[in-house]
């Protein structure tokens, strides 16, 4: 890790891997052709992006023409919700999502309610997991789309995606398209679409040591969807716009590297994370861990430190060179704390005290030791001035 600071906010974004950057560079310099151009410069890039598309398809076990590149996870989520719902509305107008999806899914679904769609928001338990019974009973003949994220970005807990797809297979009446936002799970959990049983999948490069501004939406060729961006007809007219060639090349490389390191990193990060928790509990009292540690991303730690407001802690840590994030209200636009923490039943008072540490490829034990030391200092400082004792 950079000895100037310790980055523990890998769930929000990750530093680009040097090999990814190397793979991208030629496409930022000499190989600048527009893949839609007829001339050689264009054709070279066209074939490069198709090669990357093929690699990615292999990685998730899909066909090449089922991968559509977008500007990232948010756009892929929007495309999934709006694109699938609108193209299938003749079959029904009911959608099911979990109440702790990313805002890209929730806000898109809310908007569809204005277009005459009905949305069921599934409750979650204190670990952020949906009730399979509630899911089963929410399915209707007119349910056309289900969207459940694989792993949650705030508390890292993992949904039973395979079980959900089994329930869909068993159900005779409903036949919805099953979309899964796998942005946080990529590079940690295997994401083979057939094994998972999903019909559509969102993945983003920025969470897997790839570049920002590129993601993809996988959608099974059986299903139709409408574009939300119109123009030059790229991505078979389903996502127009000059392709982010360097981004696509980098994306494929990032996926390749993260798959190579996946299993060893999972083991390493689980150990580190659990060590972190131990040290925090040893040195700081009145700390609550949000969400179960079982069925959770190995790098995710979300805690509430009583009496210590989240934004003030994050800013004090920032000053000392430790970067993390908070679910506290003061850091959000609408002055409400993280919807995820509220939905898992965390008392508001503790939601305001929440802080999220997400470890990464560059995190070392020495970083954890140093972070704990600084965390103790910052917590002590804030606790000395807090009204909540």
């Amino acid at each position, binding site marked *: 890790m950079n000895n100037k600071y310790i980055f523990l906010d890998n769930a929000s974004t990750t530093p680009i891997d040097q090999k990814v950057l190397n793979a991208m560079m030629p496409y930022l310099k000499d190989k600048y052709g527009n893949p839609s151009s007829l001339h050689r410069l264009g054709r070279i890039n066209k074939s490069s992006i198709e090669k990357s598309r093929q690699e990615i398809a292999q990685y998730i076990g899909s066909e090449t023409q089922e991968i559509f590149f977008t500007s990232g996870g948010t756009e892929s989520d929007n495309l999934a919700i709006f694109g699938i719902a609108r193209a299938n509305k003749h079959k029904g107008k009911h959608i099911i999502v979990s109440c702790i999806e990313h805002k890209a899914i929730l806000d898109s679904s809310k908007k569809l309610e204005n277009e005459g769609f009905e949305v069921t928001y599934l409750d979650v338990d204190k670990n952020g997991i949906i009730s399979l019974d509630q899911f089963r009973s929410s399915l209707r003949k007119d349910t056309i789309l289900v969207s459940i994220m694989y792993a949650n970005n705030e508390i890292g807990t993992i949904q039973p995606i395979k079980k959900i797809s089994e329930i869909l297979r068993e159900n005779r009446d409903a036949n919805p398209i099953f979309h899964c936002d796998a942005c946080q799970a990529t590079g940690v959990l295997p994401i083979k679409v057939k094994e998972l049983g999903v019909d559509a999948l969102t993945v983003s490069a920025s969470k897997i040591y790839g570049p920002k501004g590129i993601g993809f939406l996988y959608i099974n060729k059986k299903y139709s969807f409408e574009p939300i961006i119109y123009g030059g007809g790229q991505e078979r007219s389903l996502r127009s716009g000059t392709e982010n060639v360097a981004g696509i090349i980098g994306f494929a490389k990032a996926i390749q590297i993260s798959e190579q390191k996946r299993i060893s990193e999972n083991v390493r990060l689980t150990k580190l994370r659990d060590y972190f928790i131990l040290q925090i509990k040893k040195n700081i009292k009145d700390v609550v861990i949000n969400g179960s540690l079982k069925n959770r991303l190995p790098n995710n730690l979300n805690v509430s430190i009583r009496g210590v407001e989240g934004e003030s802690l994050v800013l004090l840590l920032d000053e000392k060179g430790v970067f993390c994030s908070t679910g506290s209200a003061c850091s959000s636009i609408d002055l*409400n704390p993280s919807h995820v923490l*509220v939905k898992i039943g965390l008392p508001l008072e503790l939601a305001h005290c929440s802080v999220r540490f997400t470890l990464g490829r560059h995190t070392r034990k020495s970083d954890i030791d140093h972070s704990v030391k600084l965390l103790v200092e910052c917590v002590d400082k804030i606790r000395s001035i807090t009204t909540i004792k």
Partner: protein
Amino acid sequence: MQTNNREFILVEKKKETEDVTSLYFQTADGLSFPFKSGQYINVKPRSVSGHGKSYTISSSPSEKLLCLTIKRKGVVSSALIDMVTGEKVIFDGPYGFFFPEDYIYDVVMIAGGIGSTPFYSVIKDKVANNIPGRVHLLYSNKTLSDITFLNDLNKIAKENKWLNIIHCLTQDKTKHSLIKEYSRIDKKILKKNLTSLNKKKYFICGSIAFVNDLWKLLKSEAVPEEDIFTESFF
């Protein structure tokens, strides 16, 4: 924390404008709920997760029913506006000290949109209790159809010479007999309608941006800070 919870029942609803509704409540226990004009209550409807919001009481203390005049904006305001008559809700309050008790001097009320609610309560209180003192109400809204209490306020002004209402529309040029100005409240409008800015107390209520703008405007016209009182809605 100190809370003063009381249960209320929704008795009546009145749509004021496209997105503003007045809700009339009575106490569930039938006992009185004393409050001062300009005060607010805190409410968190049961259907809302996350925290609640504060709403200024738009009725005067002498009215039978407690009224909240709410603009539909987010989750809490929508939950309240969508209540059905007979439904119960808990209010915590009253709180706030926007309006002082001794308003015997000339008062200038500057309201931005739904910021008129505390002023409506104060004006009705003045009428009910014959409290002396001239009131200039500068009421800024985007369009004619946005003006809450337009007719009610006009009626009070007709019957009470101490009330002078200056309606300002910022996005609408529709000519109407009650509209005096067709721009944001600025230096010119203040001077034209108030003649002198001296020896007056100013009360500004509206969105954070509106209140901050008017605060700066009044200060730039040398109105002393101790003569300006503010309440921002957020």
